[in-house]
C-alpha cells in the first residue's frame, strides 16, 4: 500500500494542475510496481531528454506540459539536463540533419519554459553540484546515478526521462530500491587482481563485472584496489559497469564512503570472484576488429572532464589527424568554455579534431551521422560507448587515449 500525504493527495487530485497530476500518476504506478510504501522528497533532478530518445511523440508531450499556465508547469526542485542531441554551434561539422536540429530546438524550448537549467551534461556530479552522502536524488543517466550512489553515497534509482520529469514537477520519487538501506548492501564480491593503467582499463573492469550482473538489484563489492582512483578513472569504471550491467550502485572497499571495511557492506565470508589481466584481455579480444581500417575516433560517454581534455590536448598538440579519419570529443558547455579559455580547444582544433559541447556521441542520432559521414569502424577509450554503439551499426574497438590518438594520426588502428 502506497501512502500519500495531504499535499501529494492534492497533486494527485489535480488541485495543482494537470502536469503535477500526471506526474503523481506516473510515480504511483512505478512505486506500486516496486512495492514502495511512500514517496521521498528529492533535492536535485538530472533529466535525460535527448531528442533521439524522445522522438516526435516525446517532444509533443513536453510541448503539452509547456503549454500549461506557468504556475502549473514550473519544476519544484533544481533540475539540470543530460546531454542534448545537437551542438547548435557545430552540428554542420558532423553533417547532422537540419530536421534533427529543429527537433532539438523544440525540445529545449519546452524544457526551458518549465524552469529547467539546460546544463546538457552527464558529468553534473563533477561540474555542477556534486551530491552529498545521504541526499535523496532523482538522477536520470546511468553514469551520473552510479557515481552519485557509489562514490558520493547519495541515494537514487535510475530515473528515466518521464520519471525524472515527474520528480521535478512534484519534488518526489517513490521510496524503493536504492533509497532504502536494505538494497544498498553488497551482494557479490569481486577481487581485482588486474593491473589498471588508463581509463580504458577501468572501463574494461566495469564491463567485465557488469556482464556478470543478473539484475538491477545486484550490488557488486570491489576489493583489491590498492590506492584511490581519480574521479575520472572511477567515472569510467562506473559508467561501463552501469552500461553493461544496468547497475546503479557498487562499493569499492576502502574507497567509497559506505565501504570502509568489507564487513560494512557484505558478509565477508562470501566467496569472491577474481578478476585478472586475462579477464580484461578476453574482453578486449571480443572487440578486436578483422583489420586495421578506421573511420572515426571518439572521446565521450561520459563527457570529458577538464583534466581529460587537457590530457587529450597535450597528446594532439602539434599533431595532425589523418584526413581519412574524424576525431571527436564531447564535453559540457561549462568545461568547453574553460577549455577555450585555457588554450586546450586550440590544440584539439589545430590537430583537426572536433570538440563538441552539450552532447554525447550516442545521444545525437549516432546511426544517421554514421551513415552521413561513412563512419563504420569506431575507436574509443570508453567501454560504455563501445557497448552502446554495437546496436547502431558500428564496429567498435576499445583502446587507451594514447592508442586512440596514435590511430587517428596514422589513419588506421595501431595498438
Amino acid at each position: 500500500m502506497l501512502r500519500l500525504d495531504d499535499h501529494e493527495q492534492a497533486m494527485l487530485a489535480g488541485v495543482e494542475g494537470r502536469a503535477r497530476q500526471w506526474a503523481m500518476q506516473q510515480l504511483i504506478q512505478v512505486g506500486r510496481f516496486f512495492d514502495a510504501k511512500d514517496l521521498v522528497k528529492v533535492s536535485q533532478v538530472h533529466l535525460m531528454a535527448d531528442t533521439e530518445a524522445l522522438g516526435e511523440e516525446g517532444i509533443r508531450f513536453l510541448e503539452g506540459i509547456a503549454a500549461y499556465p506557468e504556475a502549473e508547469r514550473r519544476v519544484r526542485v533544481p533540475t539540470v539536463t543530460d546531454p542534448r542531441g545537437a551542438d547548435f554551434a557545430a552540428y554542420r561539422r558532423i553533417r547532422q540533419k537540419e530536421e534533427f536540429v529543429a527537433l532539438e530546438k523544440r525540445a529545449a524550448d519546452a524544457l526551458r519554459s518549465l524552469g529547467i537549467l539546460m546544463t546538457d551534461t552527464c558529468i553534473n556530479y563533477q561540474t555542477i553540484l556534486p551530491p552529498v552522502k545521504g541526499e535523496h536524488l532523482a538522477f536520470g543517466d546511468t553514469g551520473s546515478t552510479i557515481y552519485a550512489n557509489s562514490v558520493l553515497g547519495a541515494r537514487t534509482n535510475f530515473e528515466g526521462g518521464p520519471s525524472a520529469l515527474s520528480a521535478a514537477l512534484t519534488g518526489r520519487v517513490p521510496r524503493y530500491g536504492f533509497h532504502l538501506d536494505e538494497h544498498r548492501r553488497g551482494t557479490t564480491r569481486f577481487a581485482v587482481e588486474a593491473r589498471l593503467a588508463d581509463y580504458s582499463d577501468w572501463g574494461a573492469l566495469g564491463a567485465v563485472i557488469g556482464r556478470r550482473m543478473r539484475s538491477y538489484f545486484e550490488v557488486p563489492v570491489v576489493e583489491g584496489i590498492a590506492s584511490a582512483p581519480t574521479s575520472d578513472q572511477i567515472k569510467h569504471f562506473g559508467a561501463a559497469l552501469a552500461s553493461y550491467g544496468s547497475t546503479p550502485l557498487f562499493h569499492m572497499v576502502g574507497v567509497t564512503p559506505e565501504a570502509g571495511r568489507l564487513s560494512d557492506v557484505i558478509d565477508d565470508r562470501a566467496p569472491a570472484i577474481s578478476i585478472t589481466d586475462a579477464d580484461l584481455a578476453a574482453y578486449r579480444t571480443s572487440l578486436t576488429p578483422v583489420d586495421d581500417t578506421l573511420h572515426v575516433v571518439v572521446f565521450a560517454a561520459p563527457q570529458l572532464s577538464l583534466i581529460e581534455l587537457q590530457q587529450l590536448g597535450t597528446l594532439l598538440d602539434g599533431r595532425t589527424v589523418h584526413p581519412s579519419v574524424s576525431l571527436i570529443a564531447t564535453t559540457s558547455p561549462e568545461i568547453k568554455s574553460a577549455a577555450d579559455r585555457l588554450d586546450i580547444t586550440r590544440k584539439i582544433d589545430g590537430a583537426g579534431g572536433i570538440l563538441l559541447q552539450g552532447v554525447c556521441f550516442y545521444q545525437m542520432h549516432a546511426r544517421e551521422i554514421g551513415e552521413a559521414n561513412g563512419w563504420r569502424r569506431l575507436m574509443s577509450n570508453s567501454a560504455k560507448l563501445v557497448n552502446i554503439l554495437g546496436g547502431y551499426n558500428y564496429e567498435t574497438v576499445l583502446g587507451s587515449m594514447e592508442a586512440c590518438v596514435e590511430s587517428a594520426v596514422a589513419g588506421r588502428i595501431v595498438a
Partner: protein
Amino acid sequence: MSLRLVKGRPGIGDQVEGIALVASDNFSARYDLDRINGVFSRRSHALYGQSYVGRILVLNAAKGGVATAWMLREMQARQLGPSALLLNFANPILAQGAAFAGLPLIDRFEADITSVLKSGDRVRVSPCTGEVLVLDRDAAQP
C-alpha cells in the same frame, strides 16, 4: 491441449493477447533495436534481424541505459512497438517506460519465463493480476 498459467508479480498496463517472441537474452531499446524498422539490430542479440512489432516480447532482464523510458511511447505512437513485455527481471527504466507508454509489463515470474514460453505461442497477458495464460502452443511462426 492444456492451457498453462504462469504467475508473475502484478504489473503495469491493460490486458492484451498476442504471439510471443522469446529469447533468454536481455533487453534495452537503445542498445538492441532499430526502432525505425522495428527489428533487433544488435548483432550479438539472439533475436538479431527479427521483427518485434506487435509481439509479446519475452526476454530475461532489463539492461543498459535510461533511454528506453522515453522510447517505448514513441514506438507505440508509430505503431512500431511490441504489444507487451514479459521479463524475468525488469528495472525501474522499463517500469517507468511502460507506465509512460501504457505498455503492458509483467516481471518476476514463478519460473524462468523465457523457458516456459516459446516463440509462436499465443498468450494472454493480464498485468492487473500478474498472470500469463498460454492459449495455444505454436499458434504462429515467429
